[in-house]
Structures are given as C-alpha cells and as structure tokens.
C-alpha cells in the first residue's frame, strides 16, 4: 500500500523526479544565489528569511530592551509607541525585543532539528537503498511504523512522558522527519546504484563509505536541498504549534508560539499582543517556502 499512496503524498519526493538529479557541478552558494534571483518568489523568500536571520544573529544588539524585562507600569498603555514601537505585552515586556530574541530561538532549534533529521535520514536511506534485502526491509518497516503515528499525537505522547524541552523537541522532530528523508535518499540510491560509475568505483576497490558518500550521495543533493527548506518551514510551524499548545520550549524565554498562547486570552482587549507574534511566525514560514519554490525553479531551469 505504501508504494502507491505515500510516494504521491510527499511533495519533496515528487520534486526529486521533477528536479532531476544532475546538479553536481553547481556550488551550494551559487545554487542558493540562483534560487534567490531566479524568480520573484525566490527573491521575496530570501529577503524575508534574510531579515529574520539578521535579527537572530544580532539579537543582543538590535533588541531595544532585555526580552524578559517586566514593567507593570507599562501595561496601562500597552499599545505601540515611540519607546516601544510594537507595544508591550501583558507583563509590560517589549514585544519587539521578544520577537527578535524569539527569532534567535526558533532559528537555532529548527535548523538543528532538521539537520539532525537529514543526517540520520540520509545515512539510513543510503544504507537501505545500497544494501537492499533485509537491511532495507527493517529500516523501511521501522520508518513506516513511525510514520503511522499522526505527528502531533506522537509529539504529545513523547512530551507527556519526557516533558517539554528544546532537546526533546529536536529529538521528536528528528524522529518524525528522518523516515521521510530516508525515503528520498533511498529512491535516489536505488536509481543510481547500478550505474556504471558506481560499478567502476566498486571495481577500483573503493570502500562502501566512499561509494556512498562520494558516488551516490551527490545525486541526492538537489532534492535534499529543496526538502531542507520546506522542512525548515514545517519545523518552524511545529515548534510554533507546540509553543501554542503549551508543550513547547519552557517559559519565560521568548518563543513565538508561546507568545501567541500567553496573550491569546486577551485578544479582545489587546489584540496586538497576539497578532504580532502570529504574523512573525507566518512570515518566516512563508519566507522559507518561497525560498524552496525558488530553489526548485532554479533546479528545473539549471
């Protein structure tokens, strides 16, 4: 059943076929630049992502106030003003400062989680595709079992048991994303492992590691790059959702989903406290998805 259904269900895997796997000569940066300039969508995406990355890196210098500085006197008039140009929240904390620091949080946790998933998934996918047989069956079977859990339910189960922390969020995201990435890499591996240049490498007496890492893996670069940005988008949503549900990063450090949750009950009185962080997280995800779209177009054209 999985063969019919799941391949269609995963956009990244489809893009594999679309993108073709022949992009080995372009450097990584060159391709990113092409993604950012190939289409207006890609450019917009790059601009949005660039803005938040800038905020995240320079948070200590940009943020006008400490993110957790409480000032009850300000709550009397929490709306945007010259001093607090996005206003303050229900505890009198400066929203702009919390946004900037929140960017740093999400742009640290999400890439770490996605890179972890990519590393694990790539390794398992290469192994499953190259070895075949029982190795393949076991790896894919375990992956399918993990995928059978609706993601958010799996998060809830794990977090109910082990509590909420940045590490647990990273682990859970790694666990749920790795099987999908493994599928992408496995598909590429199956496709190229019988080509002549792989056979040549084997005859030369190269080690399995060399063949996997230098002969086969480069073919998966294109699809993996597109998947990386799409997955960053999903992961940011996931982190936001966990924060909103109250099982995300522990307070008081700023986390966009958590900010929405804290102010949500006051939306009738002070809507800006909820709307601003909600807009921030939406814009970042849009940025990554646009960037992925631009990248895919660059892959198609190049």
């Amino acid at each position, binding site marked *: *059943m999985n063969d019919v259904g799941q391949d269609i*269900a995963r956009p990244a895997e489809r893009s594999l076929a679309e993108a073709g796997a022949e992009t080995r000569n372009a450097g990584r940066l060159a391709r990113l630049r092409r993604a950012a300039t190939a289409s207006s969508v890609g450019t917009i995406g790059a601009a949005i992502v660039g803005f938040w990355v800038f905020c995240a890196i320079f948070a200590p210098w940009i943020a006008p106030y400490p993110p957790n500085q409480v000032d009850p006197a300000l709550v009397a008039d929490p709306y945007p003003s010259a001093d607090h140009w996005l206003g303050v929240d229900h505890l009198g904390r400066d929203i702009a400062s919390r946004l900037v620091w929140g960017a740093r949080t999400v742009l640290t946790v999400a890439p770490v989680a996605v890179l972890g998933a990519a590393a694990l998934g790539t390794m398992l996918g290469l192994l499953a595709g190259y070895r075949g047989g029982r190795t393949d069956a076991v790896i894919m079977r375990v992956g399918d079992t993990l995928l059978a*859990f609706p993601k958010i339910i799996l998060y809830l189960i794990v977090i109910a048991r082990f509590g909420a922390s940045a590490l647990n969020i990273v682990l859970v995201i790694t666990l749920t994303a790795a099987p999908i990435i493994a599928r992408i890499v496995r598909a590429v591996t199956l496709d190229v492992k019988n080509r002549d240049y792989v056979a040549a490498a084997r005859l030369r007496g190269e080690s399995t590691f060399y063949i996997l890492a230098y002969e086969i893996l480069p073919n998966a670069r294109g699809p993996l790059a597109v998947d990386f940005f799409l997955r960053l988008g999903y992961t940011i949503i996931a982190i*936001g959702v966990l924060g909103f*549900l109250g099982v995300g990063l522990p307070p008081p450090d700023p986390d966009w989903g958590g900010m929405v949750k804290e102010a949500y009950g006051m939306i009738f009185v002070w*809507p800006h406290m909820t*709307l601003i962080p909600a807009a921030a*997280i939406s814009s970042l995800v849009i940025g990554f998805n*646009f960037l992925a779209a631009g990248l895919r177009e660059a892959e198609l054209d190049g």
Partner: protein
Amino acid sequence: MPRYVARQLANMLVTLLVVSMLVFALNELTPGDVARKLLGPYASQEQVDVLYEELGLDQPVAVRYAEWLGKALTGDFGESYVHRRAVSEVLWDRLANTLLLAAVSFAVIVPFSVLLGVLAGMRERSPIDRSVSVFSSVCASIPEFAMGVFLLAIFVVWLGVLPGTSPLTTSGGWPVWSQFVLPVLVVTFYDAGYLISMIRTSMVEVMRQPYVRTAVLKGMPFRRVVTRHAMRNAIITPFTVILLQLNYLVSGLVVVETVFAYPGFGRLMLEAALAKDIAVIEAGALVAVAVTMLTQLIGDLGYMALDPRIRV
C-alpha cells in the same frame, strides 16, 4: 484484490500491535510513576503503595501488558483519572465530534481545491497559475493557530459576526452551525494550500500529454478539453492525497480545537498529555494510528478503482 486487502489488514494489525507495545512501554515501564502520577505529588508513600498494589502494578510488565491488551480488544481501555469515567465513554464522544468537524471541513476543502488546482494547472505559468500558486503557498505557510488568531481578530473582535468559541452548546447565545464557520475556515485555508498545489502539479502534467494536444488541435473548445478530457485524469493522482487529508483531519485538528475550545479528540489528547492521563493517551494513540492506516488503505483501494492500470 481480496488478498491484497487481507494482507494490508494483517499488516495493519501487526503495526497496531507494535504501536501498542511502544506506547505501553513508554508510559508504564516504570510502574511506580503511574501510581505517583495518579495521586499527585502530595500523596504519602503509603497511599502510593496501596494504589500500586490495587492497580496490579506489582505484576511484571509482560503480564500487565497482556491484561491491558486483552481488555483493550473488548473495547475497555480502563478509566481516565482526569474525567473519572471509562476512557471508552469519553473517547468515542470526542472522536464523533472531531469526525463531524472533519467531515464538514472535507466537504468544503475538496471542491475548493479541485476548482483552484484545475484553474491554475490548465494554463501553466499564466497569471491565474501564478496567483493561485502564491495563494496556496501562503495558505500552507500560515500555522493554523496564527490563521485562527487572524480570523478571530477580524470576524469576532472587529466585526463581531461570529462566535469565538465552539463548545457545541447554545449557552453562549450562538447557534451551533455558526460555531463551525471559523474552525472550518482555518482548516480549509491550511489544508487546501497543500491540496491545491498537488492538484495543480497533476493538472500541469496531464495538460502536457499528447492526447490533450490532439484534442486542442482538432479544434475542441478549451473548456471542453479541460472538463471532459483533462480533469478526470488530473484528479486521479491527488486522490490518495485527498484521502490522506482525512487522516490529518482526524488527528491534526488538535490546534484548531484548542483555539476554538471545540470538544474534540485532539483536545482530549492534548489535555491527557498535559495531565499525564495515561489511559487516555494509550487508547488515543491506538485509535489515531488505526484511523491513519485505515484511511491509507481506503485511499489505495480508491486509487485502484479510479485507475485500472494499477493492479496488485
């Protein structure tokens, strides 16, 4: 065909068994915690010990798992200590509510995304295609809670034309149907974004087929080419995806249910996770996985029915 279904069902049972073991092991491998969790941090050690024996927690894990599984097979999932009722009573009520919300959303999402997807895909890179693609990409990018908050700010806080919560009772003064509008809208925007792009991609591929070109070249009106020749084939591929959305709709509604205080399955699971209501978590996990796998199976069957080239 019957053999295929039988094999998939057997496959499903095995997966469910593995899942049940995993979830059970995760929650009950250290049984001391269970009694402690049930009684809270202020109970004395004696009380914990008494409950420990009452629950049979002094038995080995394998024995307890077998007992739990035996009861679960008869539909008895134990008692929720938060709700103080049998898990099965709470669970099926909540699941029915979620299925209702899912069904309504599904009825809106599918026509909406087929329409936009076909419109976008029939002329690749046309202005319509560009705008629909950007629209669907933006929709799929906005997390449900953010979309919920935006819609809430517009329709409830600003215009005041819709209720902000959906408890499914009329005590708030709003008719029940109006309580569905915002949750369904949120789900539609989020989910349709994905579906539209799937259907668009498929439509683009179909429009490149020789038989479509033939139809156009022999002078058939474009509208007829699209509706008669292309559309049916364009919908086959995303069909499975459409059915997979059912699965998202059943278990992915946690966020929407939380935003609008809708008494559904997702919120039950969230509350159970926060309160460490183990019996509910275990039963809910099984139900969620079963629903996922069933929809996949139905999807595959429907796919085969639609496309006779695929045979097992």
